């Protein structure tokens, strides 16, 4: 399991998109190069969700959409005791789900 998360840069027009599309939403190009998602940004919105899916034994999860510097938006888990819309955060990688004891790594956000 990869411990990095990638966006995809269209080799024709340069648009970076996430998640993956087989065809570029802007120019319909079909070749991409992976770009590691890492860096700082701001919380666009967040929620504390108590209606959880399987694989979690916590009471709630704090999820957020973050707009990274440069404009790419990503969804992930927000590790912040005092969340606020607009607050600066940075990405980190951690275990975000563990189905049948097998860890899945993904994006988490911590205060910048």
């Amino acid at each position, binding site marked *: 399991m990869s411990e990095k998360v990638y966006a995809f840069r269209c080799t024709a027009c340069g648009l970076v998109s*996430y998640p993956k599309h087989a065809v570029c939403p802007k120019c319909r190009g079909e070749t991409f190069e992976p770009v590691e998602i890492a860096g700082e940004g701001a919380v666009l919105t967040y929620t504390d969700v108590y209606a959880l899916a399987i694989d979690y034994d916590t009471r709630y999860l704090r999820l957020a959409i973050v707009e990274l510097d440069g404009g790419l938006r990503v969804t992930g888990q927000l590790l912040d005791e005092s969340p606020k819309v607009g607050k600066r955060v940075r990405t980190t990688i951690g275990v975000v*789900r563990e189905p049948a004891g097998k860890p899945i790594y993904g994006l988490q956000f911590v205060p910048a």
Partner: protein
Amino acid sequence: MRSVYVIGAGMTRFGRSEWPLVDLAAAASLAALHHANLGKVPVNAVVVANMGAGRINRQTAIASALVDRLSLWPAAAEAVENGPASGASAVKVGYQAIASGMADVVLVTGVEMMRAVDGLEATDFVASLSQPEAEYIYGVTLPSLAGLFARLYMDRYGVERKHLALVAIKNHDNAMKNPYAHIHQPITMEGILTSPEAVVNNPPVAEPLHMFDCCPVSDGAAAVVLASEEVAAKLGAARVAIAGIGQATDTHAVHERQDPTDLKAVRLASAAAFDKAGLKPSDIDVAELHDAFTILEIAESEAAGFFKVGQAHKAIERGETKLTGKLPINPSGGLKAKGHPVGATGVAQLVELTWQLRGEATGRQVAKAKAAYACNFGGFGNNVVATVLRKEER
């Protein structure tokens, strides 16, 4: 294209089913078939809307099973899976079959048995419609997408929790008048928001959304019988026409939308349905919206064109969407209180609207309803089917 009419509509009470899946589907189907009073006119095709039987009920190919249970051989049969928009999608398939001339009579039945599994599994089954590697792996569920959406929307347009509560109170009130509704429980502003007990009565589900902002987990089935103009005329059926259907998709991951508060697929699907029907939003007398979460009733009513963006909560404050208001929304109780058996929902919306247009919605009838609109919202707005029905005078 030939005109298509809804000549029969029926459903089971939503809630917890005592019957197995196919019997539940058969009960709604028979109610619609009896309502249509087909006599010797054969059913040419059966379309079943269902999202999760393969996973949660461990039964596949349920359209074939339903034809068999109803002894409708050799009618054509297929199931349509399009997430929570399966119901209106299945009606669209039936509509296309008749409009194209491939069939004269089609039975469309939506069914879901979500209470066959526990709450965690039911929530996860629905969550599996989210983007797998960019949403689902993080623990995203539908309530969480609604929570993320609600915070953005409420901040931008000044919508407060009291507005969400007004939607819930209205829909619970309407459901009290609907014997088919899952929830028969009147609620008050004090009970769910303003009293000290409200914190206990109405716990958070996905902040800023609380329990009374979310639909229940329901079993249920709903069915409509569609027919060509020739068959409808021969049977002397009430003239409820499918005047227009529109459908549109949007990005799978909500974060990828340029403006995540813009329900673009609702906007485009609705515009297409109105265009086909030759009607405007202001021509609509009654609407059923996909209020899986209260915030969605507000946002969809704007995206469909009934209110300007950012204005629906003010119309709700004025009571305009109540049964007695200018545009009654969710007279059935909506998903919030009628219940949301996912595959059945889109069909159930059209069942309610058919009854409304025929003047048969006893106890909650919207006076002189001639044109009706339904929004069936799939995914988290990434696949939406809008339908306009119109009563034609004979």
